[in-house]
């Protein structure tokens, strides 16, 4: 229908008089007769065969993907779009065969003398054209949106409509002729009720016509004669139209038009519509759309030219994001919507729901989309009925499963710790502070996991074997960890080396193996968990090294939407403006080069700061080492059980004081970037803490383990317990006293100081420090994860209260996720790997104490594994374990080969990464080049239009027949330019063909 209408409509200029003589009751067969035997039959028949022959606009371009037709034969945008849009995505018109037939009929007789006319093609187009029309309409004509809800023939409507203003556009300024437009629009509104043939209905002055969809085209002619004084090729008009207008809006429209090619390219691969020449479908589509958009400026909308780019700009997101929000039906029936639906159909229901959910659409549209997809799906599934039952069954199962999972996750969410508190913190302090609490919670989960594992595999079996504890409980044990606790499940020394067996026939439980495997398993799980989180963070926070940016853009767009508290918002805004000012001043200062002396001073300040900080750290380490060494003698001389607290106290004091001392260095060394300052501080602090732990480990493994007569593992466990506890106490004191005092000072005494900011780096490092101790200590004190669990739990509340009372939100925009990557890396690299080294030395090199713990009597801890393997070797059914052990775990060759392979893979990946970096750089350059190219071409086009206008200022006032030979030619140039630009931008700049096209475009007007 629409194709018929359109083609008719194209020809309408030639038959202005005919419409009057048109007979409403005339059959289809008659209608085309006069059409093609018109007074202008010569001109009429000439252009068409010529076009179709020389330029594959109608036929050739369907097969040819590089759009020569559309390029060289631009004068019939309306028609063009229809042949291309051969995709029959609209089942409804197809269900009206008599209509199709009627459509075919009119053309066949008329075109009998003109074999190149390609009616069949047009007929084929007709369903697709509707889609196209709808598409354009929905996009460009908001005033017809309502009618678009009707999926039937908006295309015809649209074309008709657009042709109206276009044809009357002798005066580009008043392209949309109000008196013409108003009856037109009204007609459409009327036609809304009528689902079929809105094109026909557009002639609202013929109400009786509604029942007879036979002569829409004829009707149209008449209409055009009535209304439009200047019937012409719409394309020509169109070309002229924008060619002669010079307002800046035009340029914008140009821009949008040129860039509109991208979506079409984008979609051609996925288009499920194109039955014929799918690639071609997209190309004219965009052109058509634009030209229509050109002719129909939205009344009232200030940036009406901008409506189109909406569509353009989105295309990067793929079809899903490719459309501006239209009304539901409208969008769904657009090609994009159709494509989306097509692509959704083959998905599993779960994927489909996910895909639908991720559409940037309103709920209603999503619902409609679902409905349509389900409808389509049910249509398809009718064909495969036998599968249907099975699929339904599966569906219901998966639905039930999903519901169960949803409920479960909701339950988990509801019992998830501190959900509400975290929201409040985020609302008041932003994401950066929130990330500290998230980190804390994450560590808590780690410890809960470790505790559950150790509890179930070590502690419960041990508890089943009762043993009297004859030590006295005084209460001081909570601090020292010694005394009564020594003979509890808390420490290594309490565990037996015996095989636990209840009853004679019961399964035996080897405590030695349980102990070593549980701790080992725990560490392995932690290792992989850390590794994967770290890898994930690194991947997510990958930063393109080639694009330098100061981050102002991020600053501007990084508004923290979590912050909802009023004062916090205000503070944030203030901080942001300060930061922006700082950034600006930095930019201004950037040009001012520092003098050599200034540089030297700065450099020496840095060196001095590093020397001092390293010196302090080394001094602290030495102090701790001597203290620890003398500690044994000191303890031997002092009978007071509290004396053991000396070492932990000193260590905690160091941890409390030195980081604050370090942070004072910022007064001396002035870093240009605040981030550098934070990183430097972090590195110094982690160096201090890790070296202290390293010194302690050395002391434990070298001195305590070798010299001590009694159960040295328990001694180490106690020591670690004390360190941990002391650290916790210091943190509590710091929160309650230090931070509180700081607030009092800041608000009462020295008001210029103000409230302090929450020091995320220092607090996170404290957490890392404690976690390192816990990992080391788990072997010596299996209950340590439990203790850490409790301390973290308390810590959360304490920090939360302290935060709410004593702190203000951070003033600097923290790159929270980058910092978190760094923190997790720190947790992995010095901390966890250090722990692994320490434990490896313990297990492989140290002799267990002779009369306590599960490994008593062995010369090394690892010997328990050796003897286990020996036992297994005797049983034939476990030979494979032995084989694995001997050939994989215990084999040097295997590890040698493995290392080699890993190195090779690493090298290959490194090379691939390097290659990709180069590729990214090249692509980025290409983007810039294409942007330049686009601007250049737009300039050209605007110049061209100006020239054109000067050359033919009166072309539209010419008589119609005089115009006839002109029109196509001129329009061809215009569209050539347009298409050329499209092609130019979308394809590579280096394409030599394009040079030719451009020169063609430039030469044409001169010719």
């Amino acid at each position: 229908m629409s194709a018929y209408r359109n083609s008719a409509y194209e020809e309408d200029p030639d038959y202005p008089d005919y419409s009057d003589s048109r007979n409403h009751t005339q059959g289809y067969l008659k209608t085309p007769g006069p059409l093609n035997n018109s007074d202008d039959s010569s001109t009429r028949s000439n252009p068409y065969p010529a076009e179709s022959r020389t330029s594959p606009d109608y036929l050739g371009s369907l097969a040819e993907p590089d759009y020569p037709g559309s390029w060289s034969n631009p004068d019939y945008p309306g028609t063009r779009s229809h042949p291309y849009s051969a995709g029959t995505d609209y089942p409804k018109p197809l269900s009206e065969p008599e209509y199709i037939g009627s459509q075919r009929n009119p053309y066949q007789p008329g075109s009998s003398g003109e074999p190149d006319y390609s009616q069949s093609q047009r007929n084929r187009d007709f369903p697709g054209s509707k889609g196209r029309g709808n598409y354009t309409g929905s996009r460009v004509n908001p005033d017809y949106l309502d009618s678009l809800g009707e999926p039937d023939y908006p295309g015809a409507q649209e074309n008709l409509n657009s042709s109206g203003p276009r044809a009357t556009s002798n005066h580009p300024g008043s392209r949309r002729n109000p008196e013409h437009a108003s009856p037109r629009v009204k007609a459409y509104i009327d036609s809304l009720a009528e689902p079929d043939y809105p094109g026909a209905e557009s002639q609202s002055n013929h109400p009786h016509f509604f029942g007879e969809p036979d002569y829409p085209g004829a009707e149209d002619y008449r209409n055009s004669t009535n209304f439009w004084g200047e019937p012409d090729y719409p394309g020509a008009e169109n070309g002229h139209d924008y060619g002669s207008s010079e307002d800046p809006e035009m340029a914008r429209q140009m821009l949008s038009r040129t860039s509109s090619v991208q979506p079409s390219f984008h979609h051609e691969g996925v288009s499920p519509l194109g039955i014929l020449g799918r690639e071609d479908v997209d190309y004219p589509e965009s052109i058509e759309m634009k030209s229509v958009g050109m002719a129909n400026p939205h009344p009232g909308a200030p940036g009406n030219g901008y409506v189109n780019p909406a569509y353009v700009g989105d295309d990067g997101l793929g079809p899903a994001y490719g459309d501006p929000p239209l009304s539901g039906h409208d969008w769904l029936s657009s090609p994009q919507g159709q494509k989306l639906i097509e692509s959704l159909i083959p998905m599993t229901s779960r994927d489909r729901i996910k895909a639908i959910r991720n559409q940037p659409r309103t709920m209603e549209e999503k619902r409609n989309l679902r409905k349509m997809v389900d409808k389509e799906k049910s249509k398809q599934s009718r064909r495969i009925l036998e599968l249907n039952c099975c699929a339904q069954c599966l569906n219901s199962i998966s639905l039930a499963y999903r519901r169960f999972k949803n409920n479960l996750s909701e339950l988990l969410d509801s019992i998830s710790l501190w959900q509400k508190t975290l929201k409040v913190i985020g609302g008041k302090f932003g994401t950066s502070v929130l990330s500290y609490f998230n980190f804390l919670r994450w560590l808590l989960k780690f410890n809960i996991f470790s505790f559950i594992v150790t509890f179930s595999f070590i502690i419960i079996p041990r508890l089943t074997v009762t043993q009297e504890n004859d030590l006295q409980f005084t209460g001081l044990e909570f601090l020292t960890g010694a005394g009564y606790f020594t003979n509890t499940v808390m420490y290594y020394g309490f565990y037996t080396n015996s095989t636990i067996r209840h009853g004679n026939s019961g399964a035996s439980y080897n405590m030695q193996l349980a102990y070593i495997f549980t701790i080992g398993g725990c560490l392995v799980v932690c290792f992989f968990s850390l590794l994967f989180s770290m890898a994930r963070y690194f991947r997510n926070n990958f930063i393109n090294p080639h694009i330098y940016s100061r981050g102002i853009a991020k600053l501007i767009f990084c508004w923290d939407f979590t912050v909802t508290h009023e004062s916090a918002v205000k503070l944030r805004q203030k901080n942001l403006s300060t930061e922006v000012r700082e950034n600006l001043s930095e930019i201004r200062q950037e040009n001012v080069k520092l003098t050599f002396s200034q540089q030297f001073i700065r450099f020496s300040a840095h060196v001095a700061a590093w020397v001092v900080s390293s010196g302090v750290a080394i001094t602290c380490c030495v102090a701790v080492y001597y203290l620890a060494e003398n500690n044994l003698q000191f303890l031997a001389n002092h009978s007071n059980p509290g004396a053991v607290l000396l070492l932990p106290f000193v260590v905690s004091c160091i941890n409390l004081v030195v980081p604050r001392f370090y942070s004072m260095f910022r007064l001396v060394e002035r870093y240009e970037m605040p981030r550098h300052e934070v990183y430097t501080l972090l590195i110094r602090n982690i160096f201090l803490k890790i070296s202290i732990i390293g010194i302690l480990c050395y002391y434990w493994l070298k001195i305590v383990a070798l010299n001590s007569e009694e159960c040295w593992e328990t001694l180490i466990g106690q020591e670690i317990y004390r360190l941990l506890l002391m650290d916790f106490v210091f943190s509590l004191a710091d929160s309650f006293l230090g931070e509180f005092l700081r607030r009092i000072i800041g608000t009462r005494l020295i008001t210029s100081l103000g409230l302090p900011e929450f020091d995320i780096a220092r607090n996170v490092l404290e957490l890392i420090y404690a976690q390192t101790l816990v990992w080391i200590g788990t072997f010596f004190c299996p209950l340590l994860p439990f203790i850490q669990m409790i301390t973290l739990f308390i810590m959360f509340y304490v920090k939360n209260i302290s935060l709410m009372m004593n702190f203000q939100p951070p003033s600097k925009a923290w790159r929270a996720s980058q910092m978190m990557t760094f923190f997790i890396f720190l947790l992995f690299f010095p901390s966890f790997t250090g722990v692994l080294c320490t434990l490896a030395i313990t297990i492989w090199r140290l002799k267990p104490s002779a009369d306590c713990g599960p490994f008593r009597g062995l010369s090394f801890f690892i010997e328990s594994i050796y003897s286990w393997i020996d036992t297994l070797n005797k049983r034939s059914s476990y030979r494979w374990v032995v084989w694995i052990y001997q050939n994989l775990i215990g084999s040097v060759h295997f590890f040698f080969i493995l290392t080699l392979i890993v190195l090779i893979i690493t090298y290959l990946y490194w090379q691939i990464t390097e290659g990709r970096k180069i590729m990214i750089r090249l692509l980025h350059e290409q983007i810039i080049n294409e942007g330049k190219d686009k601007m250049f071409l737009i300039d050209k086009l605007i110049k061209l239009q100006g020239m054109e206008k000067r050359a033919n200022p009166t072309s539209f006032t010419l008589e119609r027949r005089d115009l006839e030979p002109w029109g196509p030619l001129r329009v061809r140039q215009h569209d050539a330019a347009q298409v050329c630009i499209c092609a130019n931008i979308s394809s590579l700049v280096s394409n030599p063909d394009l040079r030719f096209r451009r020169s063609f475009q430039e030469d044409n007007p001169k010719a």
Partner: protein
Amino acid sequence: MEGEKESVRMRVFRAGSCQQLFYRYQDLAPQLVPLDYTSCPDVKVPYELIGSMPELKDNPFRQRIAQVFSEDGDGHMTLDNFLDMFSVMSEMAPRDLKAYYAFKIYDFNNDDYICAWDLEQTVTKLTRGELSAEEVSLICEKVLDEADGDHDGRLSLEDFQNMILRAPDFLRFTDSVKFPPFFHL
């Protein structure tokens, strides 16, 4: 089918289920929105009430958010718009979706490009007009310098997304800095 539709919604919201959101919506304008919503689907809650919600009350972009999610761009919301808004703002929403809507929020003149004027609006809103005009224009220039991939003088959605790729801290609609799940404990 009906159940599945529900489950779509449930999956989107999860934390605050559809029901709860409806009650919140109803609470905003109890005189407008009937409790039995099925009978009166054309109700719109005016922007003044939407903007007074605690989530939006102090957000400098509240008007834009309401405009972007409302049907006619006037900030008045139907229940569907309301649900849309919450589904996008929820932490469950995928990043691309958030990016799309964030782009729309920053695109003040709805031309689907963030141009210098949009940027000026954004900066003014962010800094409560504390910066001078010269500073604002300088900032906008710098932002365009940094983020404009194809050097056409304005930010398209691709440019914007590209920037997001480089800035993981972007779009903190809700706590997007989450720690990797550890055995879902």
